[in-house]
Every structure is written in C-alpha cells, then in structure tokens.
C-alpha cells in the first residue's frame, strides 16, 4: 500500500506494540534514525527485540532505549564498542539478552525474510562458536550452516531523501542496512532529510522502491 507522509516522528512511530521486533538501520551513527528512536522512547512500547548492527553508543538513541529498560533482546553483530557502556552494564547484569550474528549473515537473514526465502546454507561461521548447535550440510565439498530468515514487525530507517510516494535514496555509506531492513519488516518507517515531488528522483537510482515503505517523516 502507498506510503503515508507523517507530520511528525511521534505520528510515524504510533502503534508499535509491546513485544515487537524492531529493525534499526545504521552503522555507527551513519544511517541511524535517531529521531525515530527518540520518538519510540516517548511512544512507550516495551519488551522489544532490537535488530541492529550495534547495541547503542553513548547515552542517546538505542542506548537511551536500552537504559529505559525497554529492550528484552538485542540481535546484532557488534555490541561491544568503546562507548557501549549502557548495553555492557545491562548485559553483565543479565537484564538484556544478546544474540550475536556475523554481520553479513545478519544482513542476509533479513534479505531472506524480505525475499520469501525459507532458509539458506551459509559458509560464514562454520566451525566457530557462532555455529554451535546449528544444522550443517556439505554441498559440493564445502560445509555450510543453515540460517533462518530474520523478519521485523517494524523497521526504523534513516534515509536521505524520499519522494511523496515513498521511493528512497540514501547517501554514501549511510545506505548500509536501510534497503535490506525495508524489505524485511511488516511496517517500515523512514526518516528522511527531505521529501521531494513524485518524479524528482531518477528511477534508475532509486534504491528502495516505494512498495517497501509505509510511513515517511522529515526529521
């Protein structure tokens, strides 16, 4: 269905349920939907599973959501950073679950969810602690581990520019997880720097087609 242009970020995150799985784009701060996360903090949904590359930096954004005790589980590739003290403390106190997934497998599992793939055999992590307990299979002389799709109820995405029907372009390496997460969630909410008229984006250069986008807000 067509994307809706929201008046503000609070409208954009309205209705997110307790217990939701929330995909959050960004790699470090690049592509991070900071204003949507702030709105999610105000919105109040609890018991969330957050899927993102990292587990928060400093005391804002994801870290603030964690600090409020609203996150039950983090699925990410790299929680430990120099400024991930909020996550570190909650994890050591046993107050947040952690599932560590290799970065490419994290992206590919979300792609699978968006692409209707039931599962895939992945060579990453074979023979390592992250493959323990997972089904393996030898195909054409190489060993693979079975990986399952990872879908979100909601995706919060930071993009550069949208047109009024929700086609998106990103900027430089801020593109990162946004286009994949946009395919993998039931409700896709995007914060952009600018909304332009339909026809103003080059159809050859659209990265996320409007079909994937539910709500757009300028922030």
């Amino acid at each position, binding site marked *: *269905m067509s994307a809706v242009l929201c008046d503000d970020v609070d409208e954009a995150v309205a209705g997110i349920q307790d217990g939701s799985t929330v995909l959050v784009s960004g790699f470090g701060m690049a592509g991070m939907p900071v204003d949507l996360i702030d709105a999610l903090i105000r919105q109040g949904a609890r018991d969330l599973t957050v899927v993102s590359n990292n587990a928060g930096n400093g005391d804002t954004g994801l870290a603030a959501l964690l600090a409020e005790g609203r996150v039950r589980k983090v699925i990410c590739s790299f929680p430990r950073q120099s400024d991930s003290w909020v996550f570190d403390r909650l994890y050591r106190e046993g107050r947040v679950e952690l599932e560590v997934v290799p970065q490419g497998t994290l992206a590919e599992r979300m792609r699978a969810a968006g692409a*209707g793939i039931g599962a895939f055999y992945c060579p990453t992590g074979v023979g390592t602690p992250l493959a323990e307990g997972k089904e393996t299979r030898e195909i054409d002389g190489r060993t693979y581990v079975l990986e399952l799709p990872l879908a979100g109820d909601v995706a919060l995405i930071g993009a550069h520019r949208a047109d009024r*029907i929700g*086609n998106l372009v990103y900027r430089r390496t801020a593109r990162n997880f946004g286009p994949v997460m946009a395919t993998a969630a039931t409700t896709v909410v995007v914060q952009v720097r600018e909304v332009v008229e339909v*026809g103003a*984006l080059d*159809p050859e250069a659209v990265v996320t*087609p*409007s*079909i994937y986008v539910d709500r757009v807000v300028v922030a």
Partner: protein
Amino acid sequence: MSLSKDELAARVAADIAPGSYVNLGIGQPTAVADHLTREQGVVLHTENGMLGMGPLAHGAEIDPDLTNAGKQPVTELPGAAYFHHADSFAMMRGGHLDVCVLGAFQVSVRGDLANWHTGAPDAIPAVGGAMDLAIGAKQVFVMMTLLAKDGTPKLVRECTYPLTGLGCVTRVYSDLAVIDVGPGGASVVEAFGVDSEELGALLHLDL
C-alpha cells in the same frame, strides 16, 4: 447477464484497493489497467524489473529498453523505479505485492492454480514467472471464463492440468460469477445472470 471481457476487467479494477501495488499477468489481466482510475493511485509492477509502469507505448514513445513482461513496449510513469531480476522476484516471492491478476486453465476450489502447461505430451514446457507470481502476492485473483470452449468447467474440485501453485488463488473473476476459493472451498460472491444452483450444476460443485 454474463459479463463481457471488458466488464469483467472493470469489475476486477473496482475491487483493487486504492494505493495497491499490482502485477497484471500477460493476456486478459492486462486489460484491468484500462479501468484503473488515477484516483486509485495503483502502482503497476512488471516482473522484468519495474514499478510505476505506464500504458503501452506507441510511435515515438517506443523504447526497446522499456518493455513489459509480455515484451511489449510500455511507458514509464512519474515515481517509477527500476531493479534487476533477483530484486524484482524477491519483491514478488517476499509477498510485497498487494494483488496479482492471472489467467488460468483451471483453478481448484481450494485455490490450486494451473495456468502454465496444458499437459500435452508434445508441448515444450515454458513457465516464465507464472509460478513466482502464483505464490507471491498477498491476493491472487484469477480472470477466466468459467467454462472452457467445450463446456467443461475450469473451476474444479481437483486440477487435472499440471499445477502452477498450491492453494494460492484467493478469488476467481469469471464471466458468470465472482467466486472466492481457498481452504474453506468455493463460495459465490456475486453471480451474473445465473443463481448459485445453476452455477453449481454447470460446475458439478455444491456452491
């Protein structure tokens, strides 16, 4: 009165919710596009890699780099986007299209679809995107005559033609009736010039 092809296309178009993303299969379903109104804001997908497909191209509009899935020249609407085949079929397989409209040889009361192969032993098999379309969209509408030219029903208890997809069709639009199909069997939504009993007799089904 039974519906003409054009009336049927209009009936399908009227059932498509505003703002839907829709794929219209090759053949009769293509005619649905002529009945979509601008106010509906429906965006058309073509599986060869485009959203925002416009009407067929004519004369100077024709661009060999811009075709629909039937390889006919088409046009581009504002807000279009292009993508490659893996992305286009990921969009379909992932269930992102709201509606797909297809033709059929047979549809079963449970929604099985047969539309790619007559089963004739000397036919060269060719599936294209039929199976991907069948299983991908949130709703799969079939447009067909309810009876074949020889009078045999095309809505059947079990398909006898080779299948395209299992339990994938949600609704059949035909000249004689609109019929929902699915796990609960067939149920008539609207009949044109016949009643349910007559339909049941024609189809050898309890409706």
